[in-house]
């Protein structure tokens, strides 16, 4: 495999995998993800 192509492939793999893992970790920690936690209170408010 030519060096440039190999390097580009490595770059893409690193960006995608590390980006995916860290962003998913951020989403799990994000308050918006805890919308489920708000839903009951919203439901209660509607009631």
């Amino acid at each position, binding site marked *: 495999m030519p060096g440039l192509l*190999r*390097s580009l*492939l*490595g*770059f*893409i*793999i*690193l*960006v995608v*995998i*590390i*980006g*995916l*893992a*860290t*962003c*998913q*970790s*951020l*989403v*799990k*920690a*994000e*308050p918006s993800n*805890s919308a489920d936690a708000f839903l009951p209170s919203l439901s209660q408010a509607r009631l």
Partner: protein
Amino acid sequence: MNRFSKVKRTVSDVLQRYSPRGLLLYFLPIALIPATFIALGKGHLLSILVNAAGFALYMLAAWCLRKGLQAEYIYTQSPLPHPPEKPLKTIAAVIAALATGMIAWLGAKHSLPVALMFAVGVFLGMYLRYGLDPRDANKITAAQGYSGHEIQQALADSSRIVRTIEQANERIRNTELNRRIERICAVANSILADIAADPRDFRRARKFLNIYLDGVLQVTQGYAKTHQQTHSGELEQNFRTVLDTIETVFQEQRQKLLEEDVFDLDVKIEVLNTQLKQEGIL
């Protein structure tokens, strides 16, 4: 203590410090910073620890990677088969893989097998992007009563002196003299490479390593410092004459090493030694 141990870091050693290669790992995990603070705000201890530790591990991996790339650069510039002592690029790949696996498992809440796939993927990405550390099987062997390590050390010291001469050469503002010094350094590097390839030449080349490289270093550094303060035609001519002599002797030295003509080599060395003493260089 080796007499050349004073020659420390040179331009070549630090050249790659300013290269952007390897900086990617510093920026990719940036999302872990807000993730840590959000987890802190929500009071999730595990999430705080995982995100903060993951970020720290990525920074450590990036630092190792940059050091490994610098060591690899020095290795490729050196005429000697002296690979980096620690496999820093491989260590960086392992740390980045572990950090990603941990983030995917405990941070993103993937299952353990999926987290392992993340880790393997990052290791593969690191390998493809940066490669692994250079390992050279052609270690220098013992010869002429010297251990392989002693020869390796002497050659590494000499190689550092050559790089310091190159560094001093950059401060000299004279194209003709610059080219002469470059030619001397090129011959010196080829002699070092010859000795590394055939350590039996080490004993015969010791005077070259111990006296003349140091002499060239002193005279080049001295001229680089002096010519900036005073523009003397006589000084320049003397320096040119010395460089001419050194260049001739270096080329002869290499030829004699190739021809294994011990006697003639020693005679030439004595002649140059006397001349350099007369010039006040040694």
